[in-house]
């Protein structure tokens, strides 16, 4: 018998996490409701005669994703902590990094799931014309989600074992979301304004570089967040 490798065991862990999420649906539902609420409430926070809804949309979208993403991340290591299941994962003959990759994959599905509902909702409520920009917009969403989830998963694991975990996670993670949210919101704004994708290349490069650097770095340092 031979244990599955890094990706194999990561896939098993991701599937297990998603099965739990699907069974309980509590985090996904709250995240969805939270993002819809945020989109609706933000609409009334501005004077719609002074600021066009289309100008608001990108900022609202990204603030919403950031906070609903945090909600999902927090749950990620909670399921392992509840009955000591983390020990069972650690003792299994799988690489430690597989736990990180598996959790990150499940969180990515979670964040993309929220985005898949929130983005059309925003387009509908704010009456934004996306037109031909859909594929590029979805690309930006995915690029941003990867970086968000890489850093978020690491910090969720780090704070899961501490007091004040639910406060500490946003305090630590939000500064790291700056180079994700800023480029993503800027690129979204340009795309919604009907500008060609090429104008957003500078921003997309930052996003892509962030994804590559932090996905790798977080995977590398993850074992140091496990208690031994």
């Amino acid at each position: 018998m031979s244990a599955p490798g890094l990706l194999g065991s990561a896939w098993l862990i991701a599937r297990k996490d998603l099965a739990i999420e699907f069974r309980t649906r509590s985090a996904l539902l709250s995240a969805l409701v939270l993002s819809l609420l945020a989109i609706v409430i933000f609409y009334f926070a501005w004077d719609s005669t002074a600021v066009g809804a289309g100008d608001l949309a990108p900022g609202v979208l990204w603030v919403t994703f950031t906070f609903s993403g945090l909600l999902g991340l927090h749950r990620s290591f909670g399921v392992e902590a509840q009955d000591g299941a983390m020990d069972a994962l650690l003792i299994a003959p799988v690489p430690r990094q597989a736990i990180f990759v598996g959790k990150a994959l499940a969180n990515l599905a979670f964040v993309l799931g929220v985005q898949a509902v929130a983005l059309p909702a925003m387009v509908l409520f704010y009456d934004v014309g996306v037109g031909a920009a859909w594929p590029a917009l979805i690309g930006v969403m995915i690029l941003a989600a990867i970086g968000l989830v890489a850093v978020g998963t690491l910090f969720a694991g780090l704070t899961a074992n501490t007091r004040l975990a639910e406060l500490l996670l946003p305090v630590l993670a939000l500064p790291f979301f700056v180079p994700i949210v800023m480029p993503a919101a800027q690129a979204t704004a340009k795309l919604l304004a009907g500008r060609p994708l090429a104008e957003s290349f500078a921003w997309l490069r930052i996003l892509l570089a962030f994804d590559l650097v932090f996905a790798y770095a977080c995977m590398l340092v993850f074992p140091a967040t496990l208690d031994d």
Partner: protein
Amino acid sequence: MTDVSSTPPATRRVDPVALLAFAVVALAYGRAIWFTPPEATQGFAQKILYVHAPAAWVAFLAFGVTALAGAFWLFLKDQRLDRLAESSAEVGVIFTTAVLVTGPLWGKPVWGTWWTWDARLTLTLFLWFIYVGYLVLRGVIPGREQRARYAAVVGILGALLIPFIHLSVYLFRTLHPLPVVARPEGPAMPTVMVKTFFLAFFAFTLLYVAFVRARMALATERDALDDAAVGG
């Protein structure tokens, strides 16, 4: 893990590095205030440069030291490295705060506004957020080894993050005066200002070293006290 050998003697003496640092700081500011002419367009407000820029340098230096000490700790597990990381981060937050306070003080007379979302000021603000988070994290973890490990992770990732924030805010907008000293064609400031400027840098670096030394001595004593309390 425990290094009793580095425990300082019970009698407290004034650190000679601290004395030297205070002397050089006094020298630098004496020179800046009385012997360096005011800048032509900005007037007396420009004097704050001699605090603002060296403080910013020390802020980045401090966080670089924190990240490196953390990275080395992960391999060597030497408690002294963690104390260095901790001390450097705390001192760094103080100097970052100085940057964030002097920036608006300088900005108001020169730019006409207290706060601008200028690239470098914004970067410093995020630096402050990252390392305040770092210190909060340290504060909630009771176990020494776990605290060092977690702090090392955040310190390293924080250092990796800085170039990305820099790129983002730079692309966002920039109002900041471009570098006036470190230019390939030579400094644009009069020589007398440059000398004062570098003296201030040197003074702040010494001050950083003195503060970190004092803070490390405190951390060493605290750890020794903890060890004594559990009968280790």
